[in-house]
């Protein structure tokens, strides 16, 4: 004869076993999702094989500098895919052992969008008649804001870089280290895609205030040669 309290104890233990098994299963699923998000190798670009000599602007934490270096890299021809592949190679360079600007490995860039400047909005064309489907034609409307983004040369583009939160959340924190990452990205794009004049950053499709607590991610950065150090004027 099994006493009542032993039966209760038995079923409590069975319940604990089921709860622990459920928890372990949930943890395993979470870990799998985390790893797969870091190593997403979904082929979204057409294969390419032509190797080119590419300039990467590489940062160095020791002296706060950015220096140009050339690497033989196979890149796609299409501009947005090229920009994305460039940035992935750049981050992969920083993930190598002994890197002077160490960053975690894994995919960093979700997408790169290239938008022609100036940025224009669209409004409903009041003079157009509605289509049979009920829709009305729209016309581009230039911005009346004098500070709106303007191209500096024909064909100038704005690059919107959509970073992955897994990269941003794992980025080292500090003014120097964050600024160098941005300068390195800006300089590498400037060296290889000269039509890019301005650069903005998003994280998982959303604006974010800073990269890792310091460097401003809300502003629009001009594309420029970041290997040239800015000089401090002499005192009068």
């Amino acid at each position, binding site marked *: 004869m099994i006493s009542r309290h032993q039966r209760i104890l038995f079923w409590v233990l069975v319940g604990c076993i089921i709860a622990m098994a459920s928890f372990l299963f949930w943890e395993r699923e979470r870990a799998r999702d985390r790893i797969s998000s870091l190593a997403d190798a979904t082929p979204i670009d057409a294969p390419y094989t032509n190797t080119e000599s590419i300039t990467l602007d590489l940062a160095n*934490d*020791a*002296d*706060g500098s950015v220096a140009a270096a050339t690497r033989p890299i196979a890149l796609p021809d299409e501009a947005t895919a090229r920009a994305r592949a460039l940035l992935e190679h750049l981050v992969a360079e920083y993930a190598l052992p002994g890197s002077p600007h160490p960053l975690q490995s894994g995919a960093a860039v979700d997408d790169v969008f290239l938008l*022609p400047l*100036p940025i*224009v909005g*669209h409004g409903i064309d009041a003079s157009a008649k509605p289509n049979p489907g009920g829709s009305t034609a*729209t*016309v*581009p*409307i*230039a911005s009346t804001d*004098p500070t709106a983004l*303007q*191209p*500096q*040369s*024909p064909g100038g583009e704005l690059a919107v870089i959509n970073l992955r939160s897994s990269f941003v959340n794992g980025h*080292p*924190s*500090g*003014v*120097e*280290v964050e*600024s160098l990452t941005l300068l390195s990205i800006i300089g590498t794009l400037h060296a290889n895609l000269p039509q890019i004049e301005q650069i903005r950053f998003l994280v998982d499709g959303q604006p974010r*205030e*800073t990269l*890792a*607590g*310091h*460097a*401003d991610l*809300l*502003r629009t*950065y001009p594309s420029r040669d970041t290997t040239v*150090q*800015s000089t*401090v*004027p*002499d*005192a*009068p």
Partner: protein
Amino acid sequence: MLALATIPCLAQTTPPPAAPVPTLAAAPAIPFNRGIVLLDPAHGGLDSGSRISDSVLEKDVTLNLAFKLRSLLSARGFSVVMTRDSDAATQPGSTNPLTLDDRAGIADHARPVACLLLHATAAGTGVHLYSSELEATPGEPPANPWLTAQAAWVTQSQRLQKQLGMAFTRASIPLVMSRASVRPVDSLTCPALVVELAPDGSDSSSLNDSGYQQRVAEAIATALVFWKSQAAPPAHLTPDQLPAAPAAPAIGAKP
């Protein structure tokens, strides 16, 4: 459809008229307090900043450095305004967290001779000095935009950067000087620098070393004593002294 948007720009092929050169001789200088220094120990409260090591947080390092600087500057005759003087970073008289704009507001109201935004990092060595990335303007416009208020002070900030750089070099502290976009420096109306303390050598625990912090604070305090007499505020621009806004170059026009 997008091509249609460029038509007005294509028509604009004549060069824009040259911008009138503003005359600043009669422009009044902005009043500021040569005896006040603003210190902003970055982060605080729930925002701990970067994790230097398991036991050292950026917010603690910046506060300790600010306390040392305050003592040294007070001994040299400065009044020191701090955006926070405890772990919590809250607005005065409330429990609301202090935003970056609040910190800039405190600095701009004090009209100090120098604004130092103190940060700390485990990357690199020595001290990193950053001034704003904004392009310098000849003076402060009547309506100074909040996000680019520092533009009129960039030249002064860079001179202060050079002054501090010389002091660190004399104190044999490794130095990196550059420009960076770190909020809220672009909203400050004072000579403003981001001072980032990095380890003394390769040991990141040196950031918490009182002797190292004292050495850095003494270099800064010495430089600010010289700076006090050198600082020259920019002029207030009247509407007729404003340089014309740069016209966008026409698409298709040759440079």
